[in-house]
C-alpha cells in the first residue's frame, strides 16, 4: 500500500475553512433558531452507536454504513442518520416525558465512501422529529418548519414534493394483491425506473383496465387536483385514508401559506419500507440533488419498545450551502500593530472597538515576519509602535 500524501484525507472527507465555516454557521444558526422558536429543542447523541440497535433500524442501506468493532467485539456504526438515535433516546432517557415530543438536532452524519466527488462521506444535517402525533397537523407542522428553515437560511427559490406511501401500497395491493408482486413494482418506483415499471406492468396477468390504472400512477403529480385524479384510480379503505390524509395536509399547508411551494407526487417512493405515510423532499432550483427530505415513520419507535407515530425531516447543510451559492463575505477587520511598550494603549483601543462589535486583531510587531503581507489583508490598520504617545491613526 502506498502511504498517503500529507495533505490527503480519507475518501469523501472534507475540510471546512474559515469562509465556508462562517457561511455554514450562519445558515445553521438561523435554521436552529427557527426550530427552537417552534419549540423543537436540540439534542446531541454519540457519533458511534451499536449496529444492532441504531444501525439496523436506520433508513440507510447496510452497504452505506461505516462499521467498526469495539473492544468487546460488538459491531458499531458511525451514525448514518439522526432519526434512529432520536428514536432510541425518545424511548429510553425521555420515556417518561409526555408525548408529543419535539426534538431537533444538528449533527455530522456518516455514509460510506463513494468513489466520486459530490458525495461527501461525512456531512452536517439539521432536522427535527415530532414524536407521538399521528395527525396531518403534525405532518403539516414539520413540512412548514422545513420550509421556514430553508427560508431563514436565505433560500427563497425551492420546491417541495409530497407523496404518500400508503396510497402507493393501497393501489398496488388492490391490483396485484400479493405483497411480493407489489414489492417488485414498488422497487421500480424506488429506483425511479418508469420504463421498467411500464414493461413489468405489461407482463402482469391483469385486465387492461387495471394495467391502465397502474400506468396512471406514473402521472400522478401536480397540484391539489392530483388527489381527485388519484381517487378515480383507487378509492377504497387505505387509499381513501391516505388521500384524506393528504387533503387534510394540504388544507393545513394552505393555512401556513405554503401551497405555492408544494406539488404532489404520488409515485414518490424514497425508501423500500421505512416510511409509513406522508413522504416529502425539498429541492432548490440551482442544485441537482435534493436538499432535504422527510416523512412519517410510524413503525420505527416500536423497535425501541415505545410504540409511537412520528414524523420529521432533515436538511443537508452541505447541499444547502451549495444551493445558496455565494459564501459569506468576510466582515471588515481592523489590525492593531503594537510594540510591547505601548501594549496598554493598543489593548484599550482594541477593547473599545470590540465593544462596538468590530473584529480586531492584535499583533505584536515583533511577532510578524512579513508586515506588508499581513497589513495588506486588513481593511483598517492601526499602529501603536515606538515611544511616541498619542493615538494611533486609523488608516481608512
Amino acid at each position, binding site marked *: 500500500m502506498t502511504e498517503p500524501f500529507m495533505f490527503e484525507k480519507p475518501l469523501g472527507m472534507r475540510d471546512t475553512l474559515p469562509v465556508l465555516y462562517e457561511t455554514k454557521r450562519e445558515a445553521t444558526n438561523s435554521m436552529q433558531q427557527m426550530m427552537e422558536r417552534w419549540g423543537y429543542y436540540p439534542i446531541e447523541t454519540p457519533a458511534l452507536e451499536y449496529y444492532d440497535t441504531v444501525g439496523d433500524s436506520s433508513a440507510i442501506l447496510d452497504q452505506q454504513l461505516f462499521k467498526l468493532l469495539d473492544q468487546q467485539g460488538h459491531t458499531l456504526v458511525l451514525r448514518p442518520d439522526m432519526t434512529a438515535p432520536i428514536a432510541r433516546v425518545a424511548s429510553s432517557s425521555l420515556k417518561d416525558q409526555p408525548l408529543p415530543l419535539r426534538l431537533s438536532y444538528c449533527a455530522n452524519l456518516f455514509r460510506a465512501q463513494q468513489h466520486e466527488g*459530490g458525495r461527501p462521506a461525512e456531512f452536517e444535517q439539521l432536522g427535527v422529529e415530532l414524536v407521538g402525533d399521528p395527525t396531518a397537523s403534525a405532518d403539516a407542522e414539520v413540512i412548514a418548519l422545513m420550509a421556514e428553515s430553508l427560508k431563514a437560511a436565505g433560500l427563497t427559490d425551492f*420546491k417541495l*414534493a409530497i407523496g404518500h406511501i400508503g396510497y402507493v401500497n393501497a393501489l398496488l395491493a388492490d391490483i396485484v394483491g400479493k405483497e411480493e408482486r407489489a414489492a417488485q413494482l414498488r422497487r421500480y418506483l424506488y429506483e*425511479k*425506473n*418508469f*420504463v*421498467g415499471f*411500464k*414493461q413489468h406492468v405489461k407482463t402482469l396477468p391483469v385486465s387492461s383496465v387495471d394495467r391502465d390504472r397502474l400506468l396512471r400512477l406514473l402521472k400522478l*403529480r*401536480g397540484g391539489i387536483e392530483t388527489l381527485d385524479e388519484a381517487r378515480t384510480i383507487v378509492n377504497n379503505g387505505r387509499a381513501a385514508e391516505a388521500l384524506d390524509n393528504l387533503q387534510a395536509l394540504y388544507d393545513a399547508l394552505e393555512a401556513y401559506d405554503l401551497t405555492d411551494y408544494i*406539488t404532489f*407526487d404520488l409515485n414518490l417512493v424514497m425508501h423500500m419500507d421505512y416510511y409509513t405515510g406522508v413522504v416529502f*423532499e425539498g*429541492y*432548490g*432550483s440551482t*442544485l*441537482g*440533488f*435534493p436538499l432535504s427530505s422527510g416523512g412519517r415513520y410510524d413503525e420505527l419507535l416500536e423497535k425501541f419498545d415505545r410504540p409511537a407515530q412520528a414524523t420529521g425531516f432533515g436538511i443537508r447543510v452541505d447541499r444547502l450551502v451549495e444551493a445558496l451559492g455565494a459564501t459569506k463575505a468576510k466582515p471588515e477587520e481592523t489590525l492593531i500593530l503594537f510594540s510591547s511598550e505601548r501594549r496598554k494603549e493598543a489593548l484599550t483601543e482594541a477593547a473599545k472597538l470590540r465593544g462596538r462589535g468590530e473584529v480586531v486583531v492584535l499583533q505584536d510587531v515583533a511577532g510578524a515576519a512579513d508586515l506588508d503581507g499581513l497589513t495588506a489583508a486588513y481593511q483598517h490598520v492601526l499602529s501603536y509602535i515606538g515611544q511616541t504617545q498619542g493615538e494611533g491613526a486609523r488608516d481608512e
Partner: protein
Amino acid sequence: MSEQLTIAMPKGRIFDEAAELLRQAGYRLPDAFDDSRKLIVEAPEANMKFFLAKPTDVPTYVEHGVADIGVAGKDVMLEDERDVYEVLDLNISACYLAVASLPGQTPSTIAPKVASKYPKTAAKYFKEQGEQVEVIKLNGSIELAPLVGLADRIVDIVSTGGTLRENGLVETEEVVHITSRLIVNPVSYRVKDEAIEEMVERLASVVEGDAE
C-alpha cells in the same frame, strides 16, 4: 415561456437517431446541431441547450444536475446505477448484451474468466445464473479476449452479430435487451416539471406511435 432545458446527448451513432426523434416530436433544432464538432449547441427556438458527451458519461451529467435530461443506453444505466429517472424507452439503437465464446469452447474448470466492458452487469448476470466466474474489465475490442486467451467468454453488445462472426465467435446466451432511454435528473423532474412533462409526452407519442 417555460424554463430552458439542458439536454445531454450522446456523441456518435445514437445521436442522429435521437436528434431525428426530437425533430419528429416537433422541436425545431438549429442547423449547427448536426455539426458534431461543436460540444454545446443552443436551440433558442425550442428553448433548449444541448451538449454532446461520451455516451457512457451522459447519466453522470444528468445525475449531477448539469443536464436536466439525457439520452442514455440501457447498457450504461445498468452498469452505472445512477440516481436518475428513467422515464421513456426511446426504442432507438436497439441491440442486446450477449455472452459469446469460440465455438465449442467450454469454460475453464480452474478459473472461468469473462471479459467485458460492463463488469458489474456481467458479474450480476452470472451470479443470477448461479455460476461463479471471474470478470475482467476491458475498454474495447472485447472480441480479442477469447482469441488471445485472456478469457474464455465475453459479455458484449451485439447489434447485428457481424463483429462476432468476423472474429469467429458465437453467441451463446442473450443477457438483456438494450435500447436508449430518456433520463431525467430528480430535481429537474420536480422543478422544471411542466417543460419536462411536455417533452416526455411529445416524445412518447412519436415513439409509441412507431412501436404499436
